[in-house]
């Protein structure tokens, strides 16, 4: 999941540590989310969106998921 967290953080002049303390997570977690190594849970994504007063989809850019085992499009892809 790509995200614009580093840009949002930089605009406010926050370090990863500052953002981590505002979200009540570790700096490692912020780093992992920013670099795309970790996809945050819904609750953390909502907390980030709330902190920056933005909708989740404008911060995180998800990729369409495909069913892993059947090779067919999953129900989220339909429509």
């Amino acid at each position, binding site marked *: 999941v790509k995200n614009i967290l580093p840009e949002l953080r930089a605009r406010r002049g926050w370090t990863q540590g500052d953002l981590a303390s505002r979200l*009540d*997570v*570790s*700096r*490692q*977690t912020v780093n*992992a*989310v920013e670099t795309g190594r*970790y996809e*945050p*849970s819904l609750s*953390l994504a909502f907390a980030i969106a709330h902190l920056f007063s933005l909708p989740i989809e404008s911060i995180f850019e998800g990729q369409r998921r495909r069913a892993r085992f059947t090779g067919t499009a999953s129900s989220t892809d339909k429509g």
Partner: protein
Amino acid sequence: MHRLPEGPLSRIDDAALATAAKIQGIYTWPTVSILVSFWTYLVALIVAAVFSRFYAAGGTRTLVVMSLPLLTLLLHFFISYMVYRASDEYLRLRILKCAALAGVLLAFGTTAYFGLEQLGYPRLSIIVVNLIGWTLFTIMLIWVRHRAR
């Protein structure tokens, strides 16, 4: 150097403050509690081993040899769980990965040693396997928590 009012604190320089901060960073409550509980477990194992060798057979010996390692292992497990509960979601994922990795390494290690046993190597006590597993997990857990300080 910081400009402090005249007194004992005015003689503390930046290097000393940096060292103090570094030490405080290492000795956070999760790392200290994990280390202490694991150390307690190791001591309990030694005490149980010594007790079983030098104490006369009977109810007391059975009670001590059985309960000491089990209770201290339970303490270590409980502390590890408390550290897990006190971690955020990413660290929890990493701790679970550590547990899985320790289990996988132990599985491969014991399988490899089974082969070596067939080739004439001495038989391993189950406590050695247990100790290796817990040591691996504890080291990885401390590393994860230390990096997240």
